[in-house]
């Protein structure tokens, strides 16, 4: 079930796009897309952890659980991840 008009579906499996590199920074990480030459920012270390571990988790929700994102912050994280999916920083993958 899609929860986002752009097609982001947190019940699906995602991964960091192979075109995107992350550079750790004090605030979180800088994300650079070698395909679009766009720079974006992951503004919390936890969001960086989520993006890095998406690939190991069956769904986005599972990745948020694994990173111990508090329930109250979950909507904000989902919004951020939807934005990252829209920008191509993360992308759906076939679940295992």
């Amino acid at each position, binding site marked *: 079930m899609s929860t986002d008009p752009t097609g982001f579906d947190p019940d699906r499996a995602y991964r960091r796009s192979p075109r995107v*590199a992350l*550079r*750790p*920074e*004090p*605030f979180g990480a*800088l994300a*650079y897309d*070698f*395909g679009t*030459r*766009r*720079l*974006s*920012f*992951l*503004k*919390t270390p936890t*969001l960086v952890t989520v993006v890095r571990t998406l690939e190991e988790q069956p769904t986005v929700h599972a990745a948020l659980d694994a990173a111990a994102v508090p329930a109250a*912050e979950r909507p*904000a*994280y989902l*919004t*951020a991840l939807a*934005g*990252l999916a829209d*920008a191509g920083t993360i992308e759906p993958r076939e679940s295992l």
Partner: protein
Amino acid sequence: MKLVEHFKHGLTAPICLTWELTYACNLACVHCLSSSGRRDPRELSTVECRALIDEFQRMQVFYVNIGGGEPTVRADFWELLDYAVDHQVGVKFSTNGIRLTPPRARRLAATDYVDVQISLDGATAEVNDAVRGPGSYDTAVRAMGNLADAGFADFKLSVVMTRQNVGQLDAFAAIAQRYGAQLRITRLRPSGRGAEVWDELHPTAAQQLQLYDWLVARGEKVLTGDSFFHLNALGSAPLPGLNLCGAGRVVCLVDPVGDVYACPFAIHREFLAGNVRDPGGFAGVWGTSELFERLRRPSDGGTCGSCSAYDSCQGGCMAAKFFTGLPLDGPDPECVKGHGERALAGVSAAPRSDVDHSRRRTAVPLSIGFGVPAPAPADRACDISPLAGFQPTP
């Protein structure tokens, strides 16, 4: 802490790194901010350039802005370009177009991770060539045609805004559209030979307003290298971008001999942080230079701190103040409140850089109104706003 505050404290590596490959140039632009012309015998060798690219890769400097001089006159330019791309260091290079032949344009169009920026400072040959030299308009237009014919989409058409070309903004946008390019406009700095012509070339106060209004109305797709933040106090709509001086924090310059300066507009020993040939390499300079540490410390805005506009303009451009002889903790020479102009009235002498590779002035007095002839190309800077694609995350 807000993201912008993190930027003020500096990042683990630059976001916007300009690397000038050579001081050699076929042109002799009157406002060249690096006073280019002649090659310097101490310039980094091919092997040293490759080692520096390796270091950029290790530091995850994802892309560099390559300039000069005219970078493409270096015999190893294309080889270094390929080397960078193969090592996950994307390149955007600035050129006057001299070497962008049709076959070269086709090769560039087929290469990912490479962007090209053509410099043009007049929408007509008359205005452009007065600044950049005879024939330079035709060279740039030919290069843009070659890129467009090769299918290179969205290359950059880069313009330094002057008193003579502010009125041509719409014409520049039309040229960019004709060639499928993206327009980029940047601020004229009194750096390098730009110091000699700044008085005649820098936009008037009325033109600053015109420029600001144009950017607000039409500037959505126009890149600015974040260089007009000193104009933000002109209206309620802040121009897109970071709106802070990134020098030594997220920005720096590596010059052809490996010297690392705080920003591309600050080639002067006052802003020299070190050299990539030092034992710690570029990473050592970036991480531990005393100058950069100083720039990353919080500032109270100096005499500008109490001004109502300070939040919008942040005191303006460090290099513009320095090379017009103004104190760094005071107003920008183009302060929209007029404080800069008043301060300039009291300046008797401005510091000059001892780094000058201008060709000796034997020829080319251009048939123009602004007195000073002289040698090389200019421009480059941050062109990707560090906030491009910014997502307001938790």
